């Protein structure tokens, strides 16, 4: 019964979305106020119904109602409650419903908090948002109905894929979707602005919090996914440049570019057409990612082809949404009034350069992801585009971007003083060069990129600190004065400082991990030892253990450092009861300079086990960096100027420095 209510609520949400898409748009065009005002209740109602539908599905998973097809296929009564709930989005149909629900949630947020928006802009934005909703609800209902039943109902389900039974992966999809889907708001705002033919600082201020929320969530989601791959796959790797990973990385890159260009629109009323384009393309990348992941157009050998109907449907959504928005862009964007002017050396120009580099990086990832598909479609020989390609394209192009990230914030608006900025960064420069020298000395000649990576990472970290210190006049004036400045510095400024610092920390971690990871693979019997990275691992025993829905072989390692006890590690090799796939649970112990990482593999049946031990330098820095970036996002969001509906207050332009 509850399932039918859910199904019905989904249909009702569609009806409301239809009303929300048409009436406010017509109302805004013809100036019918009452029609425009319909957008708000419709958006809230649409979200309410979708929430009912989603909760109905969650309920079916929680009570293990195996008469529902996807519950049967993805759940089991013995699974812990957390994984029963996360099973809701651990499959195509359920995750799509979550996608749509989040979409409507964002629409409802704009409806509720957008009281200060000009009525026309608000009506049009919500109308565009509803159009996206309609497309995806139709997609859900016609190709991926999560409420489909089977009769007679099986007694037991087939269990969620064991690899998904993991706390990290339980929260990874919702965070990723908030990121993906949140960019739809920027898209809708952009399309609405194109219809109006007007973009101004206020527009940028309205778009910013949504973009920031999406970006923050996507950052967290990607980091969680990488962390999951790191400890669950058991090979010590955290990023594989896989098409599915790239699908989430492209919107992140574009969203990052959008955040930066929106600042220029807000402060200087310039780069307006470009920012609109970015807003459209950022969500376009989200749609592209959805298409790549769900259509089966890119898949691995011996994976079974997926329903091509779904692919065609999403492609149609992508084509209509992007094609429509970009046609509107080609037609309307040229009429936007040119905005404020700036010199080739200025904050604006630096942000423009930032955008150029980030867009190029997105292009690199796009090319690497799609070229194998294009070759296949053209009938050329199949190729693989893997880490070496990104090493020689992505990394060289991102190095100058990171150098720039330290300089840009020190340049003034309109006209900056490059030599002045560089003078203030002398300390960061020395640190960066020292980093390169030390890194090259540790590992002479073999990894040029690694040395450069460490160098620019340190440069950005120090440069970010310098910028903050400059703002609060640290050590330049009385400490009480600095303290006063620290407290009055806008939250958005702290947000930037944290985000840049987090990026720097993550870069250092990623570089070190990619270049200096070490590995020992060996067959081991209890009592034997392995030495790696200054630690001695002694295998004490391997024993059988039992979880709620799995059995496992658990190894017991004692780790010694300089002959003294350091820690114990318990890696597991699990066998879930329903699904036959064995999974590894790496045992990881973090310290400041890296991770100890142990994995237990197969037994040879004669008392020895294959054991893999990794020395993972600076990997914790990657997660720390991501957390700091997310923190930066939240701090920036809490800035009162950007709070939705806050009265607009144009900050006084900084006087130009001669």
């Amino acid at each position, binding site marked *: 019964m509850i399932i039918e209510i859910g199904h019905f609520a989904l249909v009702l949400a569609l009806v409301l979305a239809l009303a929300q898409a048409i009436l406010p748009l017509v109302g805004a065009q013809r100036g019918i106020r009452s029609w425009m005002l319909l957008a708000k209740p419709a958006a809230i109602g649409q979200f309410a119904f979708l929430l009912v539908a989603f909760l109905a599905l969650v309920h079916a998973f929680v009570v293990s109602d195996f008469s529902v097809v996807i519950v049967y296929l993805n759940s089991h009564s013995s699974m812990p409650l957390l994984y029963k709930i996360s099973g809701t989005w651990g499959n195509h149909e359920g995750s799509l419903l979550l996608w749509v629900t989040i979409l409507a949630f964002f629409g409802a947020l704009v409806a509720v908090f957008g009281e200060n928006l000009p009525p026309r802009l608000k009506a049009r934005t919500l109308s565009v948002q509803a159009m996206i909703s309609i497309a995806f609800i139709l997609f859900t209902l016609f190709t991926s109905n999560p409420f489909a039943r089977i009769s007679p109902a099986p007694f037991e389900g087939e269990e969620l894929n064991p690899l998904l039974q993991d706390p990290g992966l339980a929260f990874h999809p919702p965070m990723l979707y908030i990121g993906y889907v949140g960019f739809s708001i920027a898209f809708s705002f952009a399309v609405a602005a194109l219809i109006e033919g007007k973009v*101004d600082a206020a527009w940028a201020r309205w778009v910013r919090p949504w973009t920031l929320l999406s970006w923050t969530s996507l950052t967290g989601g990607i980091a969680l996914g990488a962390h999951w791959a790191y400890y669950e796959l058991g090979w010590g790797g955290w990023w594989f440049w896989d098409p599915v990973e790239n699908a989430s990385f492209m919107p992140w890159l574009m969203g990052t570019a959008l955040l930066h260009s929106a600042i220029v629109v807000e402060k200087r009323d310039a780069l307006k057409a470009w920012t609109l384009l970015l807003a459209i393309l950022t969500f376009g990348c989200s749609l592209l990612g959805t298409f790549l992941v769900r259509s089966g157009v890119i898949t691995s050998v011996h994976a079974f082809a997926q329903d091509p109907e779904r692919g065609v449907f999403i492609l149609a959504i992508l084509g209509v949404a992007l094609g429509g928005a970009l046609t509107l862009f080609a037609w309307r964007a040229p009429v936007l009034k040119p905005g404020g002017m700036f010199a080739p050396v200025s904050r604006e120009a630096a942000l423009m350069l930032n955008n150029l580099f980030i867009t190029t990086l997105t292009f690199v990832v796009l090319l690497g992801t799609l070229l194998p598909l294009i070759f296949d479609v053209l009938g050329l020989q199949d190729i693989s585009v893997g880490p070496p390609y990104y090493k020689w394209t992505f990394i060289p192009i991102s190095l100058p971007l990171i150098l720039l990230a330290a300089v840009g914030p020190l340049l003034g608006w309109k006209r900056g003083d490059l030599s002045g900025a560089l003078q203030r960064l002398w300390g960061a420069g020395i640190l960066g060069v020292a980093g390169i020298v030390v890194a090259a000395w540790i590992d002479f000649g073999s990894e040029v990129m690694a040395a450069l990576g460490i160098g620019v990472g340190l440069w950005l970290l120090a440069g970010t600190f310098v910028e903050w210190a400059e703002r609060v006049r640290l050590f330049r004036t009385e400490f009480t004065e600095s303290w006063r400045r620290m407290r009055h510095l806008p939250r958005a400024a702290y947000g930037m400082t944290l985000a840049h610092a987090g990026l720097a920390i993550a870069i250092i971690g990623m570089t070190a991990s990619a270049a200096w990871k070490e590995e020992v693979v060996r067959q081991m019997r209890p009592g034997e030892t392995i030495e790696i990275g200054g630690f001695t691992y002694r295998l004490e025993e391997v024993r059988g253990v039992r979880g709620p829905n799995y059995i496992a072989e658990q190894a017991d390692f004692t780790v010694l450092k300089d002959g003294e006890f350091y820690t114990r590690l318990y890696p597991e090799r699990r066998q879930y009861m329903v699904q036959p796939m064995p999974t590894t649970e790496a045992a990881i112990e973090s310290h400041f300079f890296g991770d100890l990482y142990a994995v237990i593999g197969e037994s040879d049946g004669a008392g020895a086990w294959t054991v893999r031990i990794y020395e993972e330098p600076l990997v914790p820095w990657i997660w720390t960096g991501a957390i700091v970036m997310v923190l930066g996002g939240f701090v920036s969001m809490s800035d009162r100027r950007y709070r939705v509906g806050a009265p607009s207050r144009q900050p006084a332009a900084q006087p130009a420095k001669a």
Partner: protein
Amino acid sequence: MKTARTGWLLPLICLVVALPALAVDVPLDDPALEERARHLMREVRCVVCQSQSIGESDAGIAVDLRRLIRAEIAAGKSDDEIRNFLVERYGDFVLFTPPFRAETMVLWIGPFVVLGLGLAFMIRFLRRRPSVAMPSSLDAEERQRIARALGKDGGENAA
């Protein structure tokens, strides 16, 4: 249906049925040779996996190819000989580094061309910007002078 429901979320997992692994990894005795083997393993794609190298997969074929690479290195083959051996059998697909050929040039040069074009476009944009509102009869030098002048106190024109 059975794989479709998880495949989309599990890019990195080999969907292939685990083949019986006949032998576990036995590293080469010479650490230098073993290091070479490891390096090579990271370049070779596990052809039945998605985006994993044979150095990081438990798939049967990955285990076999690891053993093969170690054996070939022990037999004194060079890295290039081993790469060619694999490409002859599995095609370019087996190496993570796409080959340098006419049709793959877009991959290696494309990003830098796009960056270059973008830079050129940006420089043009920054140079001519201030003259947009000016009559087009001005010559280049005049435009530059105006550009310089506007650059200094252009703030008054800003919104």
